């Protein structure tokens, strides 16, 4: 290896830091042994660097590759191909570290590093990651710059200064191309990253399921209303109806599986009044349920080309494809409606079915109550009254229930959570032969005052019921509201703030810190920024591009677009070029020096006399006169004038002009009559 191909030591240090930076965002994805693997390679590299270890031989490398491959095969066996690809990339990246010998090898590592930076974006595109990755890129670029330095460069800061400068200068080009580069359809379909299971609503619930969801403050979706925001307690983000009850578990029934508009459905409905119009940005769930204010109708024009929605018989919205990336959708919701005015027999049966052998005490309680009431409505009122009168509590940490969940809850613990109430209420309604079902979704949300968006998080997950009444159709009833109105009025957070009984007193829980004033303000501010980012940058697609360019150019034509691109490029790069080349141009001489150098040039060209670097103008003049006495007068005059201006403080426009004429009229080697 020639010295020219040797890797400067600085660049190895920068490379190691860049690698660490690049791996950190993917820590969650990697297994512990992969981090250990990288660490081993890094330590090895440092040892080589210090001359304590040598390059690994073929056998050692072979073993490392085999071990790594095996490790990936074992720890990633259940995961998607994307994870495996990224894992292999990181392995290759780690191994390459102990293999690089020349500058050329370094570039392979740099390319891998940049690829991994991109790969991290497949898992998240948040603004925080984006900012972090700019930092990673700067480190990688720094390592590249350090690679190009002399082997003896001892100033590592030079490289990072240059890298920051380069990245800053590249940003205008990036912005330009980001805006104008055509967003074309995917060329082939690719596996998307599906968020880890467990987050988000499932299509069946048992008591306790939603409580788990409520531990998470992960965002479910954001809503931006076109007009004024409706009251929060009215916002029931309806997801699925669960009609199928097996005694313990509620799950999706047949009407959720049928689409509205299909044959033989009872999907008759009437909508009243003006709809609410809003735009939702839904975080990926890996499932296809959407949560809307009923009855929601997607607005066609905003549908992304790859998204299509279906309305079920129960007026829930489902997307045709699983939500594997953030999706924007604009909908209109008619909050005044009546649906299912005429219920089919099959539906009635399904929604009143109770498996026998469960909750005997509740059944007898229900029979007793029915005897005392005349109408279904009175039955429901009495039931509500019972909830209020008796000692029921709303709590995040309810005691465990046995086999007969309703019996245990109503006559035993009396401490529960939304799904406990929904479960019990739906059961008791069905026991009285009133069609009833559990509905899961989200309730309320948090209003961000910075951008007036509503953020609905997993902790807003909620369960309530719908029952059927002749002449009115399906009606919503929220038993939790009866027990704990604050939960609905103030939202989940509000309930926590007001009532310590609800509080989760676990100091380690992130929920504990959610509402400390300063943190809350900061959180909302960051959230607004992140939403802006999601909307303007992450969500920048073909449609947004058209809008922006239309706004900017007033009608997009290829000519206008071409001129825009060329114009911006010329301005940006031209400025940069001028700046760089100006810097390279040489020293800025004073005007008299410039003139004097002209004189020296004249002398050297005509007389063949060169002024030595150390020679003073006076000494040079003597030398010229010695050889060409006929020029003595002129040379003396010029030298005197120059010395006057440069050293005697006689710099003035007149003196400079005088010097200029002297030099212009100077004829080397020719005697001058007058000067």
């Amino acid at each position: 290896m020639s010295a020219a191909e040797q890797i400067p030591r600085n660049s190895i240090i920068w490379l190691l830091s860049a690698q660490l930076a690049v791996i950190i965002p993917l820590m969650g994805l990697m297994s512990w042994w992969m981090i250990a693997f990288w660490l081993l390679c890094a330590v090895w590299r440092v040892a080589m660097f210090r001359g304590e270890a040598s390059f690994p031989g073929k056998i050692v490398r072979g073993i490392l590759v085999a071990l790594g491959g095996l490790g990936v095969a074992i720890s990633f066996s259940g995961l998607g191909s994307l994870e495996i690809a990224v894992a292999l990339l990181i392995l290759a990246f780690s191994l390459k570290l102990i293999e690089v010998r020349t500058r050329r090898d370094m570039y392979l590592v740099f390319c891998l590093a940049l690829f991994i930076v991109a790969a991290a974006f497949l898992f998240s595109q948040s603004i925080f990651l984006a900012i972090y990755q700019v930092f990673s890129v700067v480190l990688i670029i720094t390592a590249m710059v350090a690679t190009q330095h002399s082997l003896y460069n001892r100033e590592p800061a030079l490289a990072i200064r240059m890298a920051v400068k380069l990245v800053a200068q590249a940003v205008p080009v990036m912005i330009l191309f980001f805006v104008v580069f055509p967003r074309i359809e995917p060329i082939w379909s690719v596996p998307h990253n599906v968020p880890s299971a467990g987050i988000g609503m499932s299509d069946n619930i048992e008591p306790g399921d939603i409580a788990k969801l409520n531990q998470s403050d992960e965002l479910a979706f954001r809503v931006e209303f076109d007009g004024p925001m409706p009251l929060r307690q009215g916002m029931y983000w309806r997801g699925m109806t669960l009609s199928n009850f097996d005694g313990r578990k509620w799950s999706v029934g047949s009407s959720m599986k049928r689409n509205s508009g299909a044959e033989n459905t009872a999907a008759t409905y009437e909508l009243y009044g003006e709809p609410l119009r809003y735009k939702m940005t839904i975080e990926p769930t890996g499932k296809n349920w959407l949560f809307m204010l009923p009855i929601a109708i997607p607005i066609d024009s905003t549908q992304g080309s790859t998204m299509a929605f279906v309305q079920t018989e129960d007026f829930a919205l489902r997307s045709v494809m699983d939500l594997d990336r953030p999706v924007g959708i604009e909908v209109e919701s008619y909050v005044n409606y009546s649906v299912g005015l005429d219920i089919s027999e099959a539906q009635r049966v399904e929604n009143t079915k109770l498996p026998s052998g469960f909750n005997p005490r509740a059944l007898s309680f229900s029979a007793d109550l029915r005897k005392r009431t005349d109408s279904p409505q009175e039955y429901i009122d009495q039931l509500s009254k019972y909830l209020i009168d008796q000692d029921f509590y709303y709590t995040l940490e309810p005691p465990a229930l046995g086999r007969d969940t309703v019996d245990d809850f109503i006559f035993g613990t009396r401490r529960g959570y939304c799904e406990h109430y929904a479960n019990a209420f739906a059961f008791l309604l069905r026991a009285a032969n009133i069609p009833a079902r559990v509905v899961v979704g989200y309730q309320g949300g948090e209003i961000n005052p910075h951008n007036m968006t509503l953020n609905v998080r997993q902790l807003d997950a909620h369960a309530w019921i719908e029952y059927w009444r002749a002449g009115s159709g399906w009606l919503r009833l929220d038993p939790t509201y009866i027990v704990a109105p604050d939960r609905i009025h103030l939202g989940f957070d509000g309930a926590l703030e007001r009532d310590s009984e609800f509080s989760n007193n676990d100091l380690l829980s992130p929920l504990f810190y959610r509402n400390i004033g300063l943190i809350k303000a900061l959180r909302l501010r960051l959230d607004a920024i992140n939403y802006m980012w999601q909307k303007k940058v992450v969500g920048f697609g073909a449609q947004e591009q058209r809008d922006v360019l239309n706004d900017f150019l007033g009608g997009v034509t290829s000519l206008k677009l071409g001129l825009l691109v060329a114009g911006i490029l010329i301005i940006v790069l031209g400025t940069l070029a001028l700046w760089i080349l100006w810097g390279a141009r040489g020293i800025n001489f004073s005007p008299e020096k410039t003139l004097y150098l002209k004189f020296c040039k004249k002398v050297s060209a005509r007389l063949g006399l060169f002024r030595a670097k150390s020679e003073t103008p006076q000494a040079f003049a003597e030398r010229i006169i010695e050889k060409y006495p006929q020029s003595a007068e002129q040379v003396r005059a010029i030298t005197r004038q120059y010395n006057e201006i440069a050293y005697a403080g006689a710099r003035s426009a007149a003196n400079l002009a005088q010097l200029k004429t002297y030099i212009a009229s100077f004829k080397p080697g020719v005697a001058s009559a007058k000067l």
Partner: protein
Amino acid sequence: MRIPSDLYQKRYRDRRGRQGRRSRFSWRQSWRAWIDKRLPPKREQVLSHRNIFIFPSRAGLVFTGLLVMLLLVAINFENSAIFALVFLLGGLLVVSILHTFGNLMGLKISGRTAEAAFAGRQAIFPIMLSATGRQHFGVQLSWQDISSDRIDVAKQSERSIPMRFRTGPRGICKPGRIKVETSYPLGLITAWTWVDLAIDTVVYPFPDKSAGEPVSQSAYHESGVQERAGSDDFFGLRSYVVGDSMRSVAWKTFAKTGQLSSKQFVDYIDHRLWLDWDNVTGDDEQRLQQLCHWALVAESGHHEYGLRLPGVNVPPGRGMPHLNILLSELALYKLPLKQSSGSYAGSMRQAGSSKPSVAL
């Protein structure tokens, strides 16, 4: 120490061959003609937009490939962040073109004549890099297959780089164009130029050791009479004769034998060594190589030595300057020289002792 003769022959033939090919059209020729016209030889050159070439390096092409791949990923996953990353990296590539170009701009390169070398050995040319307005990083010089380290030149400073150059056959060696290149800052773009610094050096024939000790035609060996009594060199002993100086008595002999003897000294009239073309055999090149060896041997001896070639006569002398003059005559023997001011050796003679010595 000796270069393989086939290598020597090959080089020598190459030189003739090149001359033979000159009549025919060749790309190399027309390229040379073009670049000679564009970048004429000059002792000192300042790099500017007129003489810098620029192109993506290998790493740059790989990097471009990476960008294309990432762009495909961005399109297929409809991932805005990756789009942004691709355009940022693309922007870096574009911006680095300017920086790489700027890194060579204003760099001043000048050369000095190298010390003489023996044919086939390396001559070392000191190449000066001077920065005026800005600093230059990672500049690399190369010719033949020899390249320098990457050099950083700080603002308003000078660096002298000793560039080795493998010389060809004896004569004047002009290394020709030197490649000055840089890939700073990112290594993705390479800017380079070939400058001819109009530097040269004299290449002595490679000494042929098989020539042995110099054979001289000096009169001493043939006639035996060109001597007279003197005080320079010890000649022999003779019996003491009254009147001999006491200082010339060989006291050691007296101690051993008890007889008085006087040491005899003589001065040689002409004990100078003539390295003569006629005393060596073989073809011209072989003769020159043998004479070269002789000259080196003679310089390490005690006698003055001179050189006789057909048409060339260097009077005897001693010392490094003399040796260099003599070797230069050998180097340039029968070679047509384009220099107007007489033979190269002639100019060296004028320069006298300024020519430094040769290390073998």
